[in-house]
């Protein structure tokens, strides 16, 4: 009778120890996981905040000389004078732009 009580007690002790160990293990795993996650969250914004460094690829305007072109023929283009008062348009637009 006493033997069976001792065996049952030991068994209960082992099972309790196992459950306790398993539970502590799971909790530790979650805590570690959270730490990893936290560190990920911490670095991600830092990566996002990182400024994009771009090189200026806009074409460089080099010197252009037309000095080698020697004028030979007549003048370029044709001229025409038209009766046209642009002053009213200029005044109206100036007023609009000031608003």
């Amino acid at each position: 009778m006493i033997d069976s009580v001792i065996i049952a007690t030991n068994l209960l002790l082992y099972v309790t120890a196992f459950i306790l160990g398993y539970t502590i293990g799971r909790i530790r795993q979650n805590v570690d996981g959270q730490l990893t996650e936290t560190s990920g969250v911490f670095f991600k914004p830092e990566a996002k905040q990182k400024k994009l460094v771009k090189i200026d690829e806009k074409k460089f305007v080099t010197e252009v000389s037309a000095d080698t072109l020697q004028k030979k023929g007549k003048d370029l283009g044709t001229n025409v004078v038209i009766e046209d008062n642009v002053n009213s348009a200029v005044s109206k637009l100036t007023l609009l732009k000031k608003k």
Partner: protein
Amino acid sequence: MAKGLDVGTSFIVLAEEVAKGKVKYKDFRDAFYVIKPTTPIATKMIEKGLAGKTFVKDADGSFIILGKDAIEKAVERNDSAKRPMYKGVVSSKEKDARRILTYILKEVAGAPSEPNEKLVFCVPAQPIDQEDEDFDVGYHEDVIVKLLSEVGFAARAINEAEALCYSELENDDYTGVSLSWGAGMVNVCVMLNGEPVVKFSTTKSGDWVDRMAAVATGETDSVVQAEKENGDFTIGQPNDNQVLAAVASYYDRLIDYTTKQLASAMDGHKSLPKFKDPLPVVVAGGTSKAKGFVDLFAKKLEENGFPLPVKEVRHAADPLHAVARGCLIAAQVM
């Protein structure tokens, strides 16, 4: 004093007020054609043959014919004239483009009447129908500012269609839509009380019509261009001349394409305000001068679901000079 300069793919136009109520326009056909003589005798003969034409002689002995004379010479030789500009910006296809454009612009703009005279020139908007690394408005603008500054102008760029609004929407409180149909592209601007709210461009216009008609008929682009500008045709109507028949047909397709692009670009555009009144739509540019253009454009706008209310579709008072006039007005307001 101030000047306005329309730097177009096919025409360069300078506008300046020469007296109160009088504006002088200088038009120049933006084209060149190179003839390289092989012998000294040929040099003399060619030079003699070019008497009365507009041309320059290069350091290597070649002759560069400029303007409409270049197109005439190219047609004479069953060839196509070259352009220093391509689709609204300085051409990267022609290695001489920048040098020749520099010469042309300096000659057309002339010397400033005073140090740092204001000069406003037009530039195209970014196209909505083409992803092209060669299309670089910033570079084009920098090139022109640099060369005009060297001459002594205080030069500034303005969007081509915005300049058209300034020229044509005075009686509409500077509210409406403008389309500049150049050779290389169509530039569009929607304006509200003098402020441009939407600006974009499409990359098919008069040159596309020429190219397609040239392919269809086996002629050169320059021959088609000359036929188109001097011949009699109405868009959408049959023609006995095969070149003009092809041109009329491709015009129809161009207008259909552009109005579809317009409707698609503006439908639900975030920057578009809610206009309380129907808007005037103004068209200008050499491509818009064809017979039947305005009527067909108005019809296609409606058919293809243009999302803004339209009061009227009208031609600019002077379709070839309207952009230069707008640049001049902008230069005087500046």
